[in-house]
């Protein structure tokens, strides 16, 4: 029977696509582990880029991502609180919510160009602040959307119970609503942190890169991802090895944070 055969073929293709998807994941991870572990030495962690290590790059990348988190989390959470708790679900909220989603998908390179224009060009130097700002701009919409979604899961009765006890609205939000959405929001923060720490495009012309260890955010700032971009196309073995080592470490960090976030939500659901 024709339609049965077609059915079988389509189902087989569907299974095949899942296998292809997972196949690519493992292909990439195995390649990375194989090349990466091979290329890691003790000096990879103790030396700075100028001497063939990534110490300054790791510190630089984390510093910029943490600063971005510090900017993005309060702003994004406040915005999420407005959308869910204060807007009353009106037209403004709908428009803002949709614009936020649009912002979440804005091309990262354009954000880099934008930040260059007002944080690099006027000061005539690539700098760490600009890198952090670009990452923060990428992060804010994600935090907004996470907060908004997580707050929507908090039962209305909880708010009503708080009001019935005579609490003022903002206190209830801070003391009750946010607290019960804590795990969800923390997970969202972790996942978006994992996302921005692996970004390259927004850093290319904002922080640029630095081969030396520095904490001076007014200067070109060391970046792990930008270094990978440069090193990967260097033709000599040492640079490429370093690029593989850095890529492996970056991927491990990103995936670990991701799985941690997933684990957090899961154990919450389990309760």
């Amino acid at each position, binding site marked *: *029977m024709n*339609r*049965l055969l077609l*059915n079988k073929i389509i189902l087989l293709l569907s299974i095949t696509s899942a296998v292809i998807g997972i196949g690519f994941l493992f292909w990439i991870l195995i390649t990375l582990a194989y090349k990466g572990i091979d290329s890691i030495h003790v000096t990879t962690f103790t030396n700075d880029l100028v001497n063939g290590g990534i110490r300054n790059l790791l510190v630089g990348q984390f510093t910029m991502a943490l600063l971005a988190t510090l900017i993005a989390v309060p702003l994004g959470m406040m915005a999420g609180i407005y959308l869910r708790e204060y807007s009353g679900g009106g037209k403004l909220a709908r428009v803002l919510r949709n614009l936020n989603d649009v912002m979440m998908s804005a091309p990262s390179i354009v954000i880099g160009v934008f930040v260059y224009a007002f944080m690099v060009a006027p000061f005539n130097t690539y700098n760490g602040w600009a890198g952090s700002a670009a990452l923060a701009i990428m992060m804010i919409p994600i935090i907004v959307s996470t907060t908004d979604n997580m707050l929507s899961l908090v039962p209305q009765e909880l708010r009503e119970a708080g009001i019935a006890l005579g609490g003022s609205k903002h206190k209830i939000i801070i003391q009750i609503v946010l607290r019960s959405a804590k795990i969800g929001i923390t997970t969202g923060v972790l996942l978006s942190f994992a996302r921005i720490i692996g970004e390259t495009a927004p850093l290319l012309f904002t922080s640029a890169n630095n081969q030396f260890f520095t904490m001076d955010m007014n200067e070109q700032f060391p970046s792990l991802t930008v270094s990978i971009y440069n090193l990967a196309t260097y033709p000599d073995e040492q640079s490429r090895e370093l690029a593989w080592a850095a890529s492996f470490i970056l991927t491990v960090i990103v995936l670990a944070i991701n799985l941690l976030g997933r684990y957090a939500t899961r154990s919450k659901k389990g309760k």
Partner: protein
Amino acid sequence: MEQNNMAMKVENLTFTYPGAAAVSLKSVTLPIERNKITALIGPSGCGKSTLLRCMNRIHDVYSGNKYEGKITLYTRSGEKQNVLELKKENELIALRQTVGMIFQKPTPFPMSIFDNVAYGLKLSGIKNKTELQGRVEKALKGAAIWEETKDRLNDSAMGLSGGQQQRLCIARAVALKPEVLLFDEPTSALDPISTGAIEELIAELKSEISVAIVTHNMQQASRLSDYTAFMYLGELIEFDKTETIFLNPANKMTEDYVTGRFG
């Protein structure tokens, strides 16, 4: 010769859901008589829907179910087959076209009224336009919804009212000329007027089709059915003519249930 009056026969059916520790049906034996309406009643979770869903193997849309026992289907042409032995997809498809099913909530497909009714026919291989039109019309008339829909056959079925949608679903099943129709609480989501129309329709259908109906509504069972089966905790407690079950049940539990003392 008794077999001629039989449409389906469930014998010693034991059923387990995938991954479940306990069985959901325990050795159930139940006849579905030809051109009669058999009602399945019992408190929630007693297994009546589960039983119904065994009869056209709709359970098998999800894998991992375990059946034991036998369900025999006696076709009009005199053949008989054990429904539980079917394995191949085309056999299951043929079974489901012979043993149709109507669900708790109306389930119009996201397509036009005409296409909804023609859907099963097209699946069974009918491509001829005039034949399709004829059979769709006949089915809609049979489900007493033709007058309301004949001018809007190409409109989306989603626009119909709940009662109309349910009759459309019956028309859709009837169009395939099934031998048995399984109704799984077909009116529980409907208002009283629509419910009345559906009950009337089911009563008319039995001249051509054998019916098994799961219902929570005691009056519905007593009004509509010829036979009634009372189930409790996965077991068939009592099966008999409807009057007997409602007026003079043999089992104390059945009596308590039909008189509303528990359930």
